[in-house]
């Protein structure tokens, strides 16, 4: 059946966890593209045939109008016209089926990429400029490029506004949050105190101070973790 593969592609996306990506299905994607090629190969000769039929029909009508013809000849030409018209009809419908399948395939392909792009954009809000390796390997090469471009776009908006937007994702309840240090960071001058961020230490820090260490996670290991593990 036409366009079945494309619908599989979309179903695959729809059945994955919302907000999460599965590996980009290169195989299926390429197969759908191939199917599109196939449709075009069918479509083009049909379009040519339709054109020919239409031209013939036009010629027939014109010649009928121009010359007087006998009853017999008229009947014969009527019959020919009917044959031509049926052929035209069947070609038109054939072409239509291929055209619609192509359009449907295209819509499915676009839906697949578009929705994945949406997830990729949402990742842009969660991690700083670099994707964790386990997510990155699920993207296609153009998706990786898209992520980079999009993050750059976001960055340029933020620097123009001089306001960092990727922090403060959850509404603040308390100026201090409880965190556990995951990695030895050492003595750090925070805005209100000098703290020794030793591994496994559990302490209260100012949200704004802690957040930069929490979101740095994308680059290396996450260095701090919310005690209540609210993070990604």
């Amino acid at each position, binding site marked *: 059946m036409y366009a079945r593969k494309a619908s599989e592609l979309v179903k695959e996306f729809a059945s994955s966890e919302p907000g999460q990506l599965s590996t980009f299905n290169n195989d299926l994607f390429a197969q759908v593209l191939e199917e*599109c090629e196939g449709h075009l190969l069918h479509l083009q000769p049909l379009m040519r045939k339709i054109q020919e039929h239409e031209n013939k029909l036009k010629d027939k009508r014109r010649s009928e109008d121009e010359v007087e013809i006998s009853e017999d000849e008229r009947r014969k030409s009527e019959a020919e016209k009917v044959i031509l018209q049926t052929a035209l009809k069947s070609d038109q419908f054939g072409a239509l089926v291929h055209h619609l399948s192509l359009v449907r395939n295209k819509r499915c392909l676009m839906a697949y990429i578009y929705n994945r792009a*949406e997830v990729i954009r949402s990742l842009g809000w969660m991690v700083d400029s670099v994707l964790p390796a386990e997510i990155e390997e699920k993207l296609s090469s153009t998706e990786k490029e898209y992520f980079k471009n999009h993050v750059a776009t976001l960055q340029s*908006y933020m620097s123009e506004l001089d*306001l960092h937007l990727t922090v403060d994702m959850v509404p603040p309840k*308390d100026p201090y949050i409880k965190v556990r240090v995951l990695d030895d960071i050492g003595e750090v001058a925070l805005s209100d105190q000098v703290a020794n961020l030793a591994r496994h230490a559990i302490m209260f820090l100012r949200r704004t101070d802690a957040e930069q260490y929490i979101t740095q996670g994308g680059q290396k290991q996450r260095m701090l973790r919310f005690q209540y593990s609210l993070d990604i």
Partner: protein
Amino acid sequence: MDSGAGESSAADEYESLMSTTDAELLKSAWRNEKAAPEILKFDADLVQRSRQQIQLMEEMVDEFNKNGVDPLTVSLYQMDLDRTMFLLRSYLRTRLQKIEKYVFHVEKTVELWNRLSKQEQKFARRCAGDLKHHLEQSALSKLPDQYQSHLRQSAASEDDDMIPEPQLDIYVVCRSKRYLGAFQLDDGGEEPVNIEADDLYALPYKSIKPLVESGQIDLV
């Protein structure tokens, strides 16, 4: 920051003053933006004022810290500052996310385009460029010629028929500050709704859109 309002004698006067402070205005702009399916008008003045206030508050907190004011007082101010910061960031963020989601629609519709700030317009244009490039690279360039547009299904389509648009007929929860009287929902046939002050209603966004835009009704 709105301490001056506390002096006023009548309680309702105080109420009305409170509801027009920038903090409240920002809160309601943020709430509206969160709840509305489409992007609303960018409140440039409000954002400008909020940022100035944030700066003032930051300076104030620093000052307090230096002068050794009671830590509890400082932390209360800090909390207020954090909240305002969050509101502002979340407001801008929500808008960007809407632009990202419906970028082609926003770019094409003049009315929506004019609701964006200068920076947002720049962002939207780049965003649309990125997405278009991505779609082309991934699929469109490999499709037959007549099917390569990212806005139309095929060259045979008469207008742009492949642009995701926000759904405007979803129901939103809203509340009015004042009595607005009988309001006719525009799908017709139904009884007009009496909108009372401070009552909650769930109405289709499409029909109360003008009220939201003129600020007569708040989304919750």
